[in-house]
């Protein structure tokens, strides 16, 4: 057992925190979220130039061959600065799925473009009726002469506005909830039969609901009936990334709140001198450390054996969800009225944490998933 960062990990951390400190203050965030799509392609190019987009890609496609621990490093840094660029959707999920499910040819064709910042793919999986269940997919993909033709509805396709392509999880066979019979298909969002209803999300980013009505896929990733294991693995990786983002955001909130309570005067003293406030600051930190511990654990097993991977990812998501609730709410509360305003970063961290808590399954969902997996204690 060794908790030390490798040289590579330490360098990555350095480069992330250095660049973000120079380029990603709250005012920058404000400018970015006023755009449509709400992020910067220049930033994206910089991420590509620094290699952050191809960290986890296989080396034979120009990637660095690193894993979930490094991706979590990116997540934590991005979370602490509220980075809005489409890393989760395009890199962790879509590129991750291409690496897991795509053929060698597909990998060589797409990964360098994604890693180089020239191609952004959004991932469409959720459907209104499935809540958080990954394999409950009603969207159908039918094989025809022209290729696979897709019909159905997807919701909350993160970063779809502005994406070059959309990857769709659709059913080629089997019952609505079956794990077998699922495939991954890549579409051009401008092609016929694809309509997007774009909207702003609660954290000032963008997503879209997607209606597919006979849309023809450009590409099917690997086996069109056996995508589920790759989707499950990529989702667990994405959970780790999200958890790390949550840890980063909570860490920023803990810092900002501590700084605020030490200067804010009420009743003739800084409110941070009140014991009740001190204990709340402690409880926030304890929650942060619990979330950090399980996120690191989940990252360390995310590239390993599926059962431990799934248990750890769900445990981390539950813990991060709970911690996010506590830390986010306490941060707003301790800031008082000013924490309720759009002017301060606090509220925006709070809303990003709400996304982190819910995306890819909320606390209840992952608590149940955790309980359904075999445990040495049960």
């Amino acid at each position, binding site marked *: 057992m060794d908790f030390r960062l490798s040289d590579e990990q330490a360098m990555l951390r350095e480069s992330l925190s250095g660049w973000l400190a120079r380029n990603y203050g709250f005012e920058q965030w404000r400018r970015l979220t006023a755009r449509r799509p709400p992020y910067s392609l220049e930033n994206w190019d910089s991420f590509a130039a620094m290699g952050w987009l191809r960290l986890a890609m296989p080396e034979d496609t120009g990637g660095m061959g690193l894993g979930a621990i490094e991706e979590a490093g990116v997540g934590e840094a991005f979370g602490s600065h509220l980075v809005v660029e489409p890393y989760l959707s395009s890199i962790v999920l879509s590129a991750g799925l291409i690496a897991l499910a795509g053929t060698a040819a597909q990998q060589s064709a797409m990964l360098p473009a994604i890693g180089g910042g020239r191609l952004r793919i959004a991932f469409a999986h959720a459907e209104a009726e499935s*809540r958080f*269940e990954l394999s409950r997919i009603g969207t159908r993909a039918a094989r025809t002469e022209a290729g696979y033709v897709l019909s159905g509805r997807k919701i909350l396709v993160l970063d779809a506005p502005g994406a070059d392509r959309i990857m769709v999880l659709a059913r080629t066979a089997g019952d609505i909830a079956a794990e077998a019979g699922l495939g991954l298909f890549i579409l051009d969002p401008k092609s016929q039969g694809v309509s997007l209803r774009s*909207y702003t999300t609660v954290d000032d980013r963008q997503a879209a609901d997607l209606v597919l009505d006979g849309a023809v896929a450009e590409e099917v990733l690997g086996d069109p009936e056996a995508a589920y294991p790759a989707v499950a693995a990529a989702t667990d990786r994405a959970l780790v990334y999200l958890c790390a983002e949550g840890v980063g955001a909570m860490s920023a909130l803990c810092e900002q709140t501590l700084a605020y309570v030490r200067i804010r005067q009420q*009743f003739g003293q800084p409110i941070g001198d009140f014991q009740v406030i001190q204990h709340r600051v402690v409880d926030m930190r304890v929650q942060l450390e619990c979330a950090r511990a399980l996120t690191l654990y989940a990252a360390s097993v995310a590239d390993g054996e599926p059962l431990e991977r799934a248990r750890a990812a769900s445990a981390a998501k539950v813990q991060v969800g709970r911690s996010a609730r506590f830390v986010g709410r306490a941060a707003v509360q301790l800031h*008082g*009225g000013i924490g*309720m305003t759009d002017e301060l970063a606090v509220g925006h961290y709070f809303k990003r944490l709400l996304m982190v808590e*819910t995306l890819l399954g909320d606390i209840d969902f992952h608590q149940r998933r955790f309980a359904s997996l075999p445990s040495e204690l049960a």
Partner: protein
Amino acid sequence: MDLSLNAEDRAFREEVRAFFREHLPVDIAEKTRRSFHLHPEDMLRWQRILHEKGWAAPAWPKRYGGPGWTALQRYIFDEELCMADVPLPLLAGQGVNMVGPVIYTFGSEEQKAHYLPRILSGEDYWCQGFSEPGSGSDLASLKTRAVADGDDYIINGQKIWTSLAHNSNMIYCLVRTDPAVKPQRGISMLVFPMDTPGITVRPIISIDRGHSLNETFFENVRVPRSSLIGEEGKGWTYAKFLLGHERFTIAEIARSKRRLQRLHQMARETAVGDATLADDPIFRDKTTAIEIDLLALERMGLRVAWEMDQGIDNMLSASILKLRGSQIIQAVTELSVEAMGYAGLAYESLESGCTHSPSAPDIAQGKMEEFLFLRAATIYGGSTETQQNILAKMIYAGA
């Protein structure tokens, strides 16, 4: 002891219910049900209907144009209002519930004759100038100055969190008229029009992206001496009277009941695979826990209402109502957002100033906005921590 409603109160409930059913305009009911914000003109229209019936100011005595209801009747009225999705005449709230009682209790005859009818008719909409950037929960430390100058006061300073200042034509304000004495003693209450020269209102956008809060700046604002309510230096007393009036309504018991009812409905309409969220035992456990909390709160509230009618001032219970009420408000709105799942994360601002979640059903509209805005429920009107300090004092003193 008899804790059930008597025949008279039950009849009153029926009367209120029937009135709402017959007189609430269909378009207003529909907008409220779908959580759209009402246009000021819609609010005024509804205010006029209530006023015509004599119900515009439920808490006011008859001689000032109120219905002269008991506290219990007011509670019933409020409950029927919430359950029927009748909009609160929001703009009128500060006038009706806050400054109105101060004016008829402490104001001069001229002030009563001038202001009270205009509140009832909806001609005047009031906002409150209490909090300042440096004095949130510590109100006594406020710094806005009013200096006597002949027959006038000249006001300089700044207020914050002035709800709906941008839609109001009147303000009631706590100002420091004597900086030499003990902080609480040097405060006075002034009332004056918002179009008095020297007043600037700057919007504060809150985390729900809405605009109801403002900063209000006073630069050499000159108002006549007749703007003073009651005596100079007694502003603190009037403010405490007013906040005491607020503590009961701020618990939002009936509103939480209605929110919980809608949450149940939302859960029944939310598919989870082959079943609905309402079938989920964990989710049901959470709604049940809140329902029991709310039932306890309601029983405390009814007791406080009864005590008010008996002339008993139970400060301890009133503070507990505010404390628990705000926690329950947050519990219901949190769970409502949780119930929405992914649909809640879509959150657009519409032209009308409303927010909208495209993938969510009608019943869930407005829930995210409520959730976000009501993070403030444990901050405004005395934060939870301040409320606990106050309660500790009372309990240590033997309450």
